[in-house]
């Protein structure tokens, strides 16, 4: 139930509000990624992968979109599985997912020979996005998982 609520809200917030914020350094936090991570933290790897996949699919078709469909389905399925499975503690898991997601997206985009994936994208934009997502992570994860039973303790 949480996934049904949290993911669309995060998605709408992302495209309507967050992406328009004039934040310094020209990046924005990725709320959808955090929502997927949060839901997967609660639901475990299998459900996390499924939720991630469908969230990614929605991300791929929600306007405005200009990338190849399936890219975020792939990335978020992997992220959902990873977050649900857990890698070390909770904080480590979230941090790992936040760092890995844009890198995987860049890698898949690179495989598709997406012209937007360049070295400067990796060195300039991805770190900024990762930093903002890290900053937003505690709030979003707390909002999405509060009152829920954790699958594992920190």
């Amino acid at each position, binding site marked *: 139930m949480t996934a049904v609520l949290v993911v669309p809200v995060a*998605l*709408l917030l992302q*495209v*309507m*509000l967050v992406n*328009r*914020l*004039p*934040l*310094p350094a020209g990046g924005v936090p990725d709320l959808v990624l955090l929502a997927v991570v949060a839901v997967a933290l609660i639901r*475990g*790897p*299998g459900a*996390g*992968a*499924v939720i*991630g*996949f469908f969230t*990614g*699919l*929605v991300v*791929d*078709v*929600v*306007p405005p*979109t200009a990338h*190849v*469909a*399936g*890219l975020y*389905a*792939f990335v978020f*399925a*992997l992220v959902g*599985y990873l977050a*649900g*499975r857990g890698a070390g503690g909770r904080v480590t898991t979230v941090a790992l997912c936040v760092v890995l997601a844009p890198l995987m997206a860049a890698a*898949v985009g690179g495989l*598709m020979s997406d012209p937007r994936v360049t070295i400067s994208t990796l060195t300039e934009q991805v770190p900024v996005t990762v930093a903002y997502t890290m900053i937003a992570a505690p709030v979003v994860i707390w909002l999405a998982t509060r009152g829920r039973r954790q699958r594992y303790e920190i």
Partner: protein
Amino acid sequence: MRDSRQARLILGTLLAAALVILTVDHRAGESSPLTPLRSAGAWLFGAAEEAGGAVARPVGGFLHAIAAAPSAQADIERLKAENARLRSSLSADRLDAARAAELKRMLGLAGLGGYKVVSANVIARRGQPGFEDAVQIDAGTDDGVRTDMTVLNGDGLVGRVVHASARTSTVVLLSDLASAAGARLEGGQEIGVVHGVAENGRLLQFKLLDSTAPIERGARLVSFGSHRGAPYVPGVPIGVIEQVESTPGQLVRIAYARPYADLTALDVVGVVVQGPARDPRDAVLPRREGAR
């Protein structure tokens, strides 16, 4: 980790599906079978975005304002400084314009009487404390100003120079209690002496030497002129008689005149460095009101 196997299976399936979608979409391009899906997404979320935009826009504007606050603060500071600068330059311009008008009037008067003047600005004033009514002007011996020269402005006689230094001079005003200037009634030969009275420069006392000569309110005074034009050159308007005292049996008649020059608010003045070749008589007096 108990459902690890199943989860891995799910993940593998999903990743494969994602790769299939990716490939299909990438290969098919425009005619992708995912186009209807995209249209549906566009329809659904586009509507939501449109509806939410009305809510999101003010929030975005607010956050934008917060993000822009430091630079806005700097902008406000810059604009305030610029505003102050412009305002001061505007008032300076206004002051300059007023001074230019005054200077023009003074030069007009000087030209009318044939006086050769050095223009000067009043830079300091000595008022009541010293009992003397004197001002300091910013012209001195370097400009040709000497002691005992007549000082006038665009309206009429102001006073005389009592002390001249290199750059500045001291002028005793007509309203000074110790000042005395020869004056002549307009349109005749009746002469008298103008003294200052303790009226803050609002009134001057005029002693008519011939106690039998007719004098009435509204009669006008011009300077009579001293020997060789020092300290007073002839023909400079002094003032208008406001009241005449009846002094039967006295040797002189006493009247009070309102000076033409506003002796309390002097700014641009002229020092007559050379008097006229001929007495201009009444020519410098302003036109009578109503007369052409």
